[in-house]
């Protein structure tokens, strides 16, 4: 399988909004949020957290630099769900599927439940191929990515070179913390966690922080996401229950939180719409409007001036 084989899967971005949209199309009532820190307070605010997604790009000095499994061990007898990444561009969706496949009592739409049933008992490679062969899943995934807009008789001139992030899922399965990496042969078992207090996320914090420290400074670009329950329904129910009570502080706090969540969803919805849209028609329409308004010439002159100034600065810096 060559790197160029995308099998019809387009590369997506990895914003929380994109992941949450994917979850919606799978019929799963969770959301994905950015995690700005692994500190207890940050994680506490997002509980219950079902899985952590670590996404990263790193720039190795040599192929031998690749860190192994740290203090964990490959578990070839893993009883849960694990699929290999067989198509590079599907990496984001594959990570989500690997996480969801291990969540007990998952609520999901019928297509996804069927897919999980269908792949039950398969080895990781076959499982990965089955997942990436699901047309409906590929369509849901592709619906999240930008359209290709400029072509030369079939050749997409606007395509950027495919620089994918790699995704690794951390989640609890049967009392142990597991790392699911579609590019590794098996899931990695990082040992048991203490169910009290913070629970499994405490162990995840240690493992992830250790991992980050094994990379040479500056060689790693990464981000953390949390797969969690959608908090809005719960907050609304609580707010309803408090109506007429004297708990003003709590009610006001809840209303703020609900309002913040709604703003965030609105922003995600805007970004998703914008991301999926082919803007070239708008570019043309705007230029035409500028011309009709008699403003195109001055916009051009302006742009030429800005360019000259830019070049002047560049020359000044080089001399």
């Amino acid at each position, binding site marked *: 399988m060559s790197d160029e084989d995308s099998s019809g899967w387009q590369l997506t971005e990895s914003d929380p909004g994109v992941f949450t949209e994917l979850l919606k199309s799978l019929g799963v009532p969770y959301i994905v949020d950015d995690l700005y820190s692994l500190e207890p307070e940050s994680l506490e605010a997002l509980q219950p957290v079902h899985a952590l997604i670590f996404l990263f790009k790193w720039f190795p000095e040599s192929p031998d630099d690749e860190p192994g499994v740290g203090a964990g061990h490959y578990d070839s007898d893993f009883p849960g769900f694990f699929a290999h990444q067989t198509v590079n561009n599907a990496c984001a969706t594959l990570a989500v599927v690997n996480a969801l496949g291990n969540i007990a009592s998952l609520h999901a739409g019928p297509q996804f439940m069927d897919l999980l049933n269908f792949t039950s008992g398969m080895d990781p490679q076959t499982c990965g191929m089955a997942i990436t062969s699901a047309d409906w899943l590929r369509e849901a995934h592709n619906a999240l990515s930008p359209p290709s807009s400029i*072509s030369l008789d079939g050749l997409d001139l606007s395509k950027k070179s495919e620089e994918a992030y790699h995704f690794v899922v951390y989640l609890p399965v049967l009392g142990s913390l597991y790392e699911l990496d579609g590019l590794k042969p098996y899931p990695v078992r990082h040992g048991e966690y203490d169910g009290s207090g913070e629970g499994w996320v405490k162990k995840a914090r240690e493992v992830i922080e250790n991992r980050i420290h094994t990379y040479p400074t500056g060689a790693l670009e990464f981000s953390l996401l949390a797969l969690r329950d959608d908090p809005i329904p719960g907050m609304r129910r609580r707010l309803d229950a408090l109506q007429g009570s004297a708990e003003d502080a709590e009610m006001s706090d809840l209303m703020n939180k609900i309002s913040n969540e709604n703003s965030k969803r609105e922003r995600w919805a*805007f970004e998703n719409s914008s991301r999926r849209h082919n803007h070239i028609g708008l*570019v043309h329409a*705007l*230029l035409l409007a500028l011309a*009709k308004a008699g403003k195109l010439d001055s916009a*051009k002159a302006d742009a030429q001036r800005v*360019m000259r100034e830019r070049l002047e600065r560049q020359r000044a810096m080089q001399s």
Partner: protein
Amino acid sequence: MSVDLTSTSGRTILAFKAGRAFRRAGTNFVDASPTKGAIVLTNEEGLIHFMWKDRTTGEVGEDLILFPGDAKLEKVPQSSWGRTYVLKFESSDQKHFFWLQDASTRRDEEFVTNLNRTLADPNIIAIWDARNVYPTSEASTSATGASISPPSTVQPVIPATSNPTPAGTTPEQLAQLRGIVSSMTGFTSEDELWLTDVLSSQNLLQLFQSHPELLSSLFPHLPPELIPSSDATPQQAVEILQRTTNSPPFRLAVAQLDRALRTGALGEFVRSLGLPESAAMGVGAFLAAIAEQARQEGGTEERMEED
């Protein structure tokens, strides 16, 4: 800690339709492969990539990183069919054969000359000649629709040793080239501009505020979920337009169009916008064609003073 993936790497310098041809083992014969493809020259982080891409699958069949001055694409004179070329290297004996696939031969020399200029010095900008785009005869050739099959006879190939100079370069073209070369310290001429600056946030806001009657012509081009409803106020409409034109995907589309226009390869694309093929010659030509389109559609304000 959300990661922004909208930055592009890899700038397409030029592209034109071409197929590959392969030497038949043990002979000097070269067989053309019928696969529809294109030669694409890109600049990725300062390195020039000479790629051959399959136009039906989008896959990259060949990706060569070339050092300035090392390679050039030469016509194979022994090819009686006349459109076979070989990419040859100073630094090695390797050879890659190609055949031009555009239905019209009008721009063959122009594509190849610009390719070779860029391979010799990546800082040179491509020069597209208007005479190659405006056909002199009445019957216009459909330059992009027709498919072309490879020559069925096999061409014997004897490596050429001569260094052909581009024939028929007019004094005006030479002067133009000299003028551009002498004025550049980087890679642009005096009239250079970026589409992203023409469509700056400020310019657009001024347009929205001064010409509300033009706003409705923009709505159909917005993402469908964001199109203002019929009872939206002008303020709300301006807000939506502003938000959209300030968004990374929009900015990216403008930058992509800017780059793509510099490749000279967007003939079919600009026609789909209702513009003449000459609009594909560069950003300046594109804007001139749009100005003309605006005049034809009426509603152009021929005012001397600006708002």
